[in-house]
């Protein structure tokens, strides 16, 4: 013998109201959906849905196909068949399943629901359901084929069934439906898709802005048409604006996310699709392969628009990039065409003014960039003096874009500027000159050894710069390594030692400038102590000039060298 579980309808309704539907307002949409489905089943061109409101009850009548008694009995069997969200979603493909679940949402606002329905050639039926789970079915008065649903308002939510509210909701959800919908005798359907004509006005009315441009969307595979409106002002990419989505011309929601790829945050869309599936709550799109394909297709259309703009109206494109460069750059990380667009049209900050990557390449060959703004500021002037072009890659995506360009285009060479690479641009001294100052360099190196710094001498511009402190990325991290190693317990000490063996440390460099007159005088100092103090001071000055951090050891050294120099400068007491 098989039994079925008793389903507590009250419990299910609570479950739905708290977990499935965002708001009880959706009952209007569900009723309209049922009516439209019933009309669709008749294939009639003259579908009508009439809603009347009143203090006692809300009535909605359609001239659709109607239900037979057997189908009415199935109603409750369907309600609460599954609590799994995705299965609920699938169940909607069946007419009755939709009807049952849709009707269930009416219990969010009604304690009693009457369904008076009749199919052509079959006797009419009256089904009455109560929110405590009771229901009965009896013969109904004769009627034209179709269905009338009557809701008796639940105490406390009467406002949700008032004429004003219902009209507003019916218009919101159903204004585009391909049937005639009237609320208290006034028509709320407009019959045509408003983004086909007068699109800018539509955008202003619905989204509240005048679009920079409108892009028509068309994805036949998903029966999707619509429009994308490009925002005229910058938006935070993190604020993922929603899109207005209609499914079979019924509004799904006004703020659907995930219809566009993330990079397309510069556009708001309105679309209607016959094929995309809603989640069970009918408040979001079901994330499936089709949605992914739609997203890709829309992405293609947005991309196509950008490419056309570049070809036909570069100035307008420049304006667009000025506002939405972040989105385009994000796109360029995956998309070759966009990458080209950024390369050709987006001016990046460099140490020789703002230029596009394309121009930069033409001038300098290699695309050399600093990975952070700090690094850029430390090196830009010196690099410029060596005629080395340097891009500030410290802005979001810029460094990644440059690197990607080099992987896509074999003609492009990109290099992250390693500060120490700059020294290869500096001239060395001739052998004789360098050998002569060897003793000085030995003294200097001894003084700076304790700071983990290597001293070298080169000739470079600008000549006014006495010394430059350069730290490679590895050398910078070596400091972090040392600090951590000093602190580490046994376990981690062993790990860090094992890793250190694999990669020998690099040291930062103090590069003394042989073209600088002061440095040349320092090189000639006969007194080793004074020479040492001078090098220490040059070191400190280079640190500060490059905005490098001053560690406690650096600070101590600065103090002693300063006092030492002062001591030399001031005549002794007599």
């Amino acid at each position, binding site marked *: 013998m098989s039994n079925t579980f008793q389903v507590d309808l009250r419990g299910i309704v609570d479950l739905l109201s708290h977990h499935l539907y965002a708001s009880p307002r959706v009952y209007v949409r569900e009723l309209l959906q049922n009516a439209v489905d019933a009309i669709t089943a008749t294939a009639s061109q003259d579908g009508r849905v009439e809603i009347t409101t009143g203090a006692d009850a809300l009535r909605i009548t359609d001239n659709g196909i109607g239900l037979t008694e057997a189908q009415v009995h199935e109603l409750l069997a369907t309600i609460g068949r599954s609590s*799994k*969200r*995705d299965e609920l979603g699938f169940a909607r493909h069946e007419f009755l399943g939709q009807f049952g679940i849709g009707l269930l949402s009416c219990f969010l606002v009604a304690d009693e629901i009457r369904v008076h329905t009749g199919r052509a050639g079959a006797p009419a039926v009256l089904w009455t359901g109560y929110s405590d789970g009771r229901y009965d079915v009896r013969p109904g008065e004769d009627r034209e084929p179709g269905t009338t649903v009557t809701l008796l308002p639940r105490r406390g939510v009467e406002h949700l069934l008032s004429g004003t509210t219902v009209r507003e909701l019916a218009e919101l959800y159903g204004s585009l439906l391909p049937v005639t919908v009237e609320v208290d005798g006034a028509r709320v359907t407009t019959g045509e898709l408003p983004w086909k004509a007068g699109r800018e006005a539509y955008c202003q009315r619905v989204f509240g802005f005048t679009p920079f441009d409108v892009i028509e969307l068309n994805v036949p595979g998903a029966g999707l048409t619509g429009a994308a409106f490009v925002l005229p002002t910058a938006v935070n*990419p*993190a604020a993922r604006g929603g899109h207005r989505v209609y499914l079979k011309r019924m509004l799904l929601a006004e703020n659907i996310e995930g219809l566009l790829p*993330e*990079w397309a*945050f510069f556009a708001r869309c309105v679309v209607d699709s016959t094929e995309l599936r809603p989640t069970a709550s009918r408040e979001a799109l079901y994330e499936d*392969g089709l949605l*992914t*394909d739609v997203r890709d297709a829309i992405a293609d259309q947005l991309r196509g628009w950008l490419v056309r703009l570049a070809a036909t109206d570069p100035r307008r494109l420049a304006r667009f990039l000025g506002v939405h460069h972040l989105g385009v750059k*994000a796109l360029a*990380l*995956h998309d070759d065409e966009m990458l080209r667009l950024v390369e050709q049209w987006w001016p990046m900050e460099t140490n020789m003014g703002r230029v596009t990557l394309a121009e930069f390449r033409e001038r300098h060959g290699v695309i050399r960039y600093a*990975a*952070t703004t*700090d*690094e850029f500021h430390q090196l830009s002037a010196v690099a410029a003096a060596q005629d080395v072009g340097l891009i500030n*890659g*410290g802005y*979001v*995506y*810029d*460094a*990644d874009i440059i*690197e990607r360009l*080099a*992987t896509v285009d*074999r003609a492009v060479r990109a290099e992250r500027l390693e500060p120490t690479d700059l020294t290869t641009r500096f001239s060395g001294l001739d052998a004789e000159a360098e050998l002569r100052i060897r003793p000085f360099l030995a003294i200097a190196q001894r003084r700076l050894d304790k700071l983990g710094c290597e001293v070298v001498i080169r000739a470079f511009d600008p000549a006014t710069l006495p010394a430059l402190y350069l730290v490679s*990325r590895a050398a*910078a*991290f070596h*400091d*972090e*390594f040392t*600090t*951590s190693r000093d*602190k*580490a*317990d046994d*376990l*981690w000490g*062993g*790990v*860090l030692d*094992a*890793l250190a*063996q*694999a990669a020998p440390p690099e040291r930062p460099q103090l590069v003394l400038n042989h073209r600088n007159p002061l440095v040349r005088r320092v090189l000639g100092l006969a007194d080793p102590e004074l020479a040492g103090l001078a090098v220490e001071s040059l070191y400190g000055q280079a640190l500060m000039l490059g*905005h*490098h*951090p*001053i*560690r*406690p050891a650096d600070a101590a050294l600065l103090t002693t060298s300063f006092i030492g120099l002062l001591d030399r400068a001031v005549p002794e007491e007599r």
Partner: protein
Amino acid sequence: MRTADELWDLLQQAVRMPYGAARIALIEQILRQVDEAGDADLAFTTRLMATTSYVHGGEKVKSFVTFSWCVSDFDRNPAPHHQRHMHTLLWQFKYMVNGLRQFPEIPLARTFALLDDMERRYREGGHSMQVVHKHRYIAANHLGHADEADEWYARWQAAPRDSLSDCIGCDPDDVAAYLNSRGRYAEVIELAEPVLAGELTCTEQPQGILRQLTEAYLHTGELEKAADAHRRSYRLERDNIANLWDVGLHIAFCGRTGNEHRGLEMLQRHIDWLAKAPSPAAEMHFAADSAMLLRRLTELGHGDLTVRRQGHEETPVAALATELADRATAIAARFDTRNGNDYQSRLIAETIAAEPYGVEVPLSPTAGRPGPRSSRSPSRPPRSRPPPGRASCSTWPTSSSTSSGRKPWRPPSTCSWSASGSRPTRCSRPGSRR
């Protein structure tokens, strides 16, 4: 020199960036200055954030350095701000255990010592052993100790989940990996499909669970679904070098399902990552999977096609196949030397020699319905294979927690930021991803 306030602001900026090189560059800029700012909280928090940024940005080796700093600081200079970050610190033990074994130069004893340390700290904090068991399982897997792995797997499954457990996407992902490795494909699908329907908010998901499904579907003959899962997963993984290992799996998928051309396209896209692989393990697996694809291409008569690499001449497919196979084999040997067995070498040899699944899976969305290519049975279960190692679940709230307040990690003045505030049940994908 920047003030502590300025550095806090920069840090805030950094953690809002997508994981990757740019985020690491900014964090390192802060790291260099942080000890001079005289703010112990800032010094700790920066390194804590650095650890996560390194792990998810593909520079795992550096994460050991910043993590060890944090642990030492936590143990030696107890301070109120540590309490606030305790949860994150404990969470990061997972990254460390996962990470250490991926470097053959780290003696195995260190990994096990770390596991013990992790267990001790989790016990002290009153946490479930669920995560610890899981990581002992992962370690046993790496060593090829199948029985031991089974035992830890069972204990992991039996222990209760708690706030330090991997998220509701990552835990099933790892279970699915285990089931796949044991040929229990129907169970994978039963487990994973509902997970996909749920709400996943972890950096690692749903791409991980989709990858598991890809394999399971291949074996149950649901080829269209396999193609779909592969596509979705790859799309989410392809832009971050931290996923190098997993990208290799996608390349292998293409190589074994009649999509050698697509596999080559992917290989070309990612080959330069190999030079800066996040770990030797990732390098080894990517090289082995790629070598398999390249060998297939050679066998199909396309050994003369070339692959472009930065700093190299164009390399013919046939030559690169050998080069990458050698590279993977050499790393496997280093692992085996450390581990005292030949498990990794066997594994890599199998990967390199892997044959097609015997089905053809059209990857283009417009292609016709796929079907078995021959009358051969659509698949034969692989020999017990270890589940691949994921980067690590990252479910503790990184950016979600930073979006509201200006300086989220500073001592709470008006709001009450507490350890419990970082429960890992809902985290958001950091940044607009990449």
